[in-house]
């Protein structure tokens, strides 16, 4: 079947920071050197070609886009200085925008003004929503807007954004499945199929997403630019687990509240546990994110050569969430019996940014948290199928 190309793809991609796509002459050095390219995942050459020719759909719904860890070895070997590693990063930005049918991601990626306005609005809405939870019905919060309205707006935005995330993820998964020829039957049709699916799930979620195995092993260059304490896989590992720990701590803390654990139990058992997990997690994440920032600032390796606004925003929000969280925690140990008003405002800011971070996932670089595991699942599935075919 012939596919109609999109003649404007290159120009469109350039808005997302693409390096010189046209420089590539399809030699394949980048694929040859790429530690992750194998029979089930051929890139980055093929992706640059897709961009040159204008095959948009294939570019944004191919699993390989998300199996790349951006080690930069391809860029170092490219005779044309086409910077394939940066191209892959650009293509991921483009894919996030393209997969987001609401158009918010596109606006945030292509216009700094839109990014600033939408982020600010998000913080206000989420902060307002949280403030409204504890406010009295008659309170007028901002510019005399009644709290019910704010509460409602916040709720609607939250639900909408969550829906967008679910839809985007589902669409991405469906398109990738179609491209890979994966169907319900091939996933769950037989005992063998079930086995494949479960093994692929474990590989994608356990080994790769939580264990970061290939990030650690394959993508470690012979001579990594960074010393171990700031190596990419390590600081990412700490960021990821730190974030998960913070998330867990938050769930434990408020979860108790929601399911109605008695105050005394919450005070004496749950809170200390949550606090320990949160503190360790927070430290890990702050360590990782801080080094990411420094690496990018110093352009320490190939992966840190180009930093777009979205990269800074993502790092910035993680960092702010961590920092505000720590200040609030410290404020709890201050001599006053009751929290200070400034601590309350800080708390609102902390919650607003954290919510925005998570809820704006489909529009930001954070989207990799939802797309990468799905792509890795299809990658693992394709390997499982090959293995079964070979042993058959």
């Amino acid at each position, binding site marked *: *079947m*012939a*596919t*109609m*190309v999109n*003649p*404007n793809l*290159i*120009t469109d991609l350039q808005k997302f920071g693409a390096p*010189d796509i*046209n*420089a590539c*002459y*399809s030699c394949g050095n980048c694929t040859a050197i790429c530690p992750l390219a194998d029979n089930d995942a051929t890139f980055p050459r*093929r992706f640059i*070609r*897709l961009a*040159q*020719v*204008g*095959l948009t759909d294939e570019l944004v719904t191919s699993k390989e886009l998300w199996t790349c860890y951006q080690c930069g070895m391809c860029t170092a070997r490219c005779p044309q200085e086409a910077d394939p590693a940066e191209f892959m990063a650009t293509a991921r930005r483009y894919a996030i925008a393209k997969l987001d049918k609401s158009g918010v991601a596109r606006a945030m990626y292509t216009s700094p003004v839109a990014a600033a306005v939408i982020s600010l609005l998000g913080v206000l809405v989420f902060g307002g929503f949280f403030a409204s939870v504890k406010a009295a019905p008659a309170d007028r919060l901002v510019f005399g807007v009644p709290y019910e309205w704010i509460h409602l707006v916040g709720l609607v935005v939250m639900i909408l954004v969550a829906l967008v995330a679910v839809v985007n993820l589902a669409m991405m998964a469906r398109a990738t499945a179609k491209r890979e020829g994966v169907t319900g039957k091939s996933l769950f049709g037989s005992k063998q199929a079930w086995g494949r699916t479960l093994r692929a799930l474990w590989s994608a979620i356990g080994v790769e997403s939580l264990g970061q195995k290939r990030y650690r092993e394959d993508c470690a260059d012979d001579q990594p630019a960074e010393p171990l304490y700031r190596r990419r896989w390590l600081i990412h590992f700490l960021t990821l687990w730190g974030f998960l720990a913070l998330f867990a701590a938050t769930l434990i803390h408020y979860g108790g509240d929601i399911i109605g654990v008695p105050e005394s139990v919450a005070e004496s058992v749950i809170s200390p546990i949550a606090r320990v997990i949160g503190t360790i997690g927070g430290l890990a994440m702050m360590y990782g994110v801080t080094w990411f920032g420094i690496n990018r600032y110093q352009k320490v390796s190939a992966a840190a050569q180009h930093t777009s606004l979205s990269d800074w925003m993502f790092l910035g929000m993680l960092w702010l969430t961590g920092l505000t969280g720590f200040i609030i925690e410290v404020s709890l140990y201050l001599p006053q019996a009751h929290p200070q008003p400034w601590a309350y405002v800080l708390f609102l800011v902390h919650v607003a940014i954290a919510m925005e971070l998570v809820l704006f996932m489909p529009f930001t670089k954070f989207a990799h948290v939802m797309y990468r595991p799905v792509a890795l699942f299809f990658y693992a599935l394709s390997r499982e199928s090959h293995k079964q075919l070979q042993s058959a």
Partner: protein
Amino acid sequence: MTEQKPAEEAKANPEDRRIGVYICHCGGNISDYVDVEAVRDALVDEPGVVVSTTELFACSDGTQHDMIDAIKAKGLDGLVVASCSPKLHQVTFRNVANRAGMNPYAYTQANVREQASWAHQHDRAGATEKVIGLVRSAVAKTRLSDELHPLRFDTVQRSLVVGGGITGLRAAIGLADIGLEAVVVEKAPEVGGWMGRFGASFPSEASGKDQIASLMAQIKDRRDITVYTSAELTSKAGTFGNYTVGITLHRDGGDKELSLDVGSIVVATGFDSYNPDDGEYGYGMDGVVTLPEFKELIDTAPAVGKLSYQGRPVRSVAYIYCVGSRQGAGGNEYCSKFCCTSAIHSSLLVNKIDPSIRQFHLYRDIRAYGKFELEYGASRGAGSTYLKFADDAPPTVEKLPKGGLGVTVTDLLTASREVILPVDLVVLVTGMVPRQNKSLIDLLKLPVGTDGFFNEIHPKLRPVETVVDGVMIAGCCQAPRTAAESVQAGLAAVAQSAALLKKGYAELEPLVAKIDPDKCVGSGECLSVCPYESITMIEWDGRQIASVDPSTCKGCGGCVPLCGVDAIDLLGYTDAQMRSAIEELISAEAPTKAEAVKEPVS
């Protein structure tokens, strides 16, 4: 023209000739299979033979010097070398004779290697016997040789250039600068050929029109160049160095005829652009154009702004390469050579006009050779995308329902994915085809290759000469090529014309037919057989006889047997010589094998 001296004295007493016979071993090529000593011994006592000797390598420098010394010391007036084919060394030994002060046409080569030793490797006695016969026969022919001298005649210091394209115009300037008058005959009302139509052309961006204009300005500065437009070469007579040509000038008031003497003719009639068939890659559809048409579109577009075709803006272009070239058996099998670079260069011009125009190049192989590689790189850098299709899967072009054209191609560089490119304009990168020029070809007897372009004698060593002496070919009439390469050929033709004409005279081999006026009865039979139209009837002593023009006769001998009264002789191969040679060959009394032939000592 200097008359030829008859050498009656030499013929008077053949037995008194002083002939040297050299029998070559050729390393072992001859002596391994032929008893060369026996041959030498058999020749020693032949009438007229003064020297009979064997040599390891007759062609070696040392032996050549020995021969020269012997010729001088012994006063030899004939030379026979029994060795390899005359194709290999006839000139070598003629030169030996010449250097020794002997008439070079008194040299005869007996080919005893190809004709005896190699052919009869298993019959030493028989081979030896045959060699003795061949050498005796050569001696017999030499005994009757005449003293001959090259034909020498004055040359006209003027060249005719047919075709006023970039090749012809530049050649005319070169001719004038080297001191030869130049006359350019251009069929079209304007000079310039194809380059004269184009604006910016590769390499760099110099305009073709400007280049032609600058050539014309240089021509105006030179008195020795005449340019005729709307003119044609309509007749040619004479021979190289002395052609008389007729030129017809098409003028409003009717045709005018002109006659001119010229020494050489440079044919620079160029090429035609391939004209696609209706429907070939969508040709005929609105928006499908050939390369020359596209160049015109670019030339008329603003320097910076919008490119438009028939009033519609062009936002995207697809180039389909190799149209009319590399067609495989039966078609135009050659590569047109200039078109890859021309298409790439055009796309760079488009980038300059409007960098946002999207350009796809659908190619089989990119042959932007040499420095043109850089243009290829530049075009990719400027945003052109290249898609490679297989020879047996050419792209197709159709109209898209939503408007515009769709080019479907299977791209080998994208894992053989079949894609449709939606574009506003399709450019067929058309190649070169030979120009229709039948009357000129017939008139000048131009050698046409199977591809329809003119053939030079040797592509490397004689790149602009044809088998017709004094007629040269240059530029795209020889083969597809760029303007620079065409001009190079034009200047090579200038150098070759100078080599022929600048001495003021030319020399020809004297081995031509000669008619004895006393014997000729004027039947005229020989006239029709001469392929070079060298024989004419002349008045002699009050009667009509046939006469050969030695300057156009090639010495093929075709007329000799046709003459009923044996009035024609081929100098260097006269009837008497050939008869005597044949007689010697058939009557030769060879020594009986048993006594004369010694087996090699093993």
